[in-house]
């Protein structure tokens, strides 16, 4: 049922494509499905099209072809109906340096035609508190550090209760403490029922906070699903601990295990796809290899990514 599917989706795109005027295809036939209530990690190296996708979702740029729905309404057509329910941080914060932190928020809040001017001051104060900027609210924004600017940008996204938060690389340029705070905030918001769409080029960040993820590379969607399913789709490496490492390597090679590596008394390798692990163990024991430990290492999202692209993560730009 198409309708119930889009109702459950906070974001759904169909063959969404963007070619910039330079001619390069930044996003190529993207079919994204972000379930409501999820913390969705939008993962990809720099230049893979994450920001371009977010710009299309927010109505900032027009798709070359394809369509997008946000909170069940078509974008960019329903911008005025949808965006008051969406908070966004796109490509880092942008502020008026000549205004104080508080006045920056007042300005952004004034731009929302659904924002009640009578509650403006209270909402601005609450948003400042939420990101821990209340003490610096009277300072001119040009005097803010990058971390403070990032928080103020987040505060602008939190001026109203939102159904969807779109955060484009929210931890960029933050120190570890700042990153932790953002993660905590994301978890809190998600617990309140807000759908969070979080783009990042950092795998562990996605792994730590997200329930779902999509992986992009060069404008294409490689895969999407729950983080657990993505990680398990990449099979972990087989690991055998044994004093008889050379015999173990010989036996495993006969069984079709590839990329064998020996470190001290540990042998690791990639087991062939259609292969019962118990049979491997039996073969080892049968060949009188003394096995101290046998199993697979838990696969990480990084393994999944390497398996998908055949390359490491932080390669591009």
């Amino acid at each position: 049922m198409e309708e119930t599917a889009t109702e459950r989706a906070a974001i759904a795109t169909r063959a969404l494509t963007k070619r910039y005027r330079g001619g390069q295809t930044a996003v190529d036939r993207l079919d994204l499905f972000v379930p409501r209530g999820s913390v969705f990690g939008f993962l990809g190296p720099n230049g893979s099209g994450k920001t371009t996708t977010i710009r299309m979702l927010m109505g900032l740029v027009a798709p070359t072809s394809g369509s997008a729905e946000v909170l069940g309404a078509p974008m960019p057509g329903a911008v005025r109906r949808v965006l008051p329910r969406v908070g966004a941080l796109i490509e880092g914060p942008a502020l008026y340096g000549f205004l104080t932190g508080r006045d920056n928020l007042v300005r952004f809040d004034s731009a929302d035609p659904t924002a009640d001017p009578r509650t403006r001051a209270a909402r601005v104060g609450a948003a400042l508190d939420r990101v821990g900027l209340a003490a610096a609210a009277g300072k001119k924004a040009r005097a803010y550090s990058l971390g403070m600017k990032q928080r103020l940008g987040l505060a602008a996204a939190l001026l109203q209760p939102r159904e969807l938060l779109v955060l484009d690389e929210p931890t960029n340029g933050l120190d570890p403490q700042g990153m932790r705070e953002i993660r905590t905030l994301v978890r809190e918001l998600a617990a309140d029922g807000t759908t969070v769409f979080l783009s990042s080029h950092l795998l562990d960040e996605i792994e730590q906070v997200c329930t779902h993820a999509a992986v992009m590379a060069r404008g294409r969607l490689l895969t999407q699903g729950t983080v657990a399913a993505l990680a398990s789709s990449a099979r972990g490496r087989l690991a055998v601990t044994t004093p008889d490492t050379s015999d173990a390597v010989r036996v495993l090679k006969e069984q079709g295990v590839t990329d064998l590596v020996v470190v001290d008394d540990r042998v690791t390798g990639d087991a062939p796809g259609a292969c019962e692990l118990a049979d491997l163990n039996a073969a080892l024991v049968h060949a009188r290899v003394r096995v101290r430990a046998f199993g697979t290492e838990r696969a990480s999202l990084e393994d999944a990514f390497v398996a998908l692209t055949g390359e490491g993560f932080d390669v591009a730009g």
Partner: protein
Amino acid sequence: MSQADVVVGGARAASPLWQLSLFRSEVTSVFRRWRTIALLGVLAAVPVLVGVAVKIETGGGGAAGHDGAGPAFISQVTNNGLFLVFTSLAATLPFFLPMAIGVVAGDSVAGEAHAGTLRYLLVAPAGRTRLLCAKYASTLVFCLAATLVVAVSALAVGALLFPLGDVTLISGTDVSFGEGLLRALAIAGVVALSLIGIAALGLFVSTLTNSGIAAMATTVGLLITVQIMDQFPQLHAVQPYLFPHYWLSFADLLRAPVYWDQLLDNARLQALYAAVFFSAAWARFTSRDVTS
């Protein structure tokens, strides 16, 4: 109750009056800029310079002004300080005033694009048409403010340095000081109105680029070019369509009876420029990609 529950089922009910918040916010951010204050300061200084120069020249015993030299009405200033208002407006209208408008209008959209704040206004969501209207309206408020700054500064300096009294109009008739003041106010209104064309032109240029500086420079460059074109007799045929062509017609308000022809030509021309360039700005701004 979760946060999301509060708003489930569509946008919050909004009062149409809330839409004005954006306009108010635009006006305050224009006037809270250091640059705006500096522009207004320069405009306020012009009448001071003119007034002091006239005072020094006449204080030296020489006859006040010579016909044809210096800005219009300068020869009457020594007899009546109110004429400093007319002189100052005539002196600032060709370049200073429209340059200030060009800076504010040129920066209005491009400056926000450059700073990146444009994308946050659009996702707020300000709405592209509404934002453009608010930008234009706040520029028009600046046109009026800039004109009034010149007029009020000139009136203050004129009252301080020269006598005030009945006003002798261009047509030779005398009117009371009160009526002269009213006519000065009307002239300030006409001068402000004369600037809506270049304000729209600047707004359009501002939608074309992501650099506020480039947009300001282009707008001011266009102003200078057009002003020069307006001086060449060879371009006689196109001059009635150049936006500054009828600017100095405001002097016709100092006649009894008032000559309306050129005043109306000016109003029509400004309205035409405003309509054409605002439409162009709208067409461009509502269709462009905002990637900065």
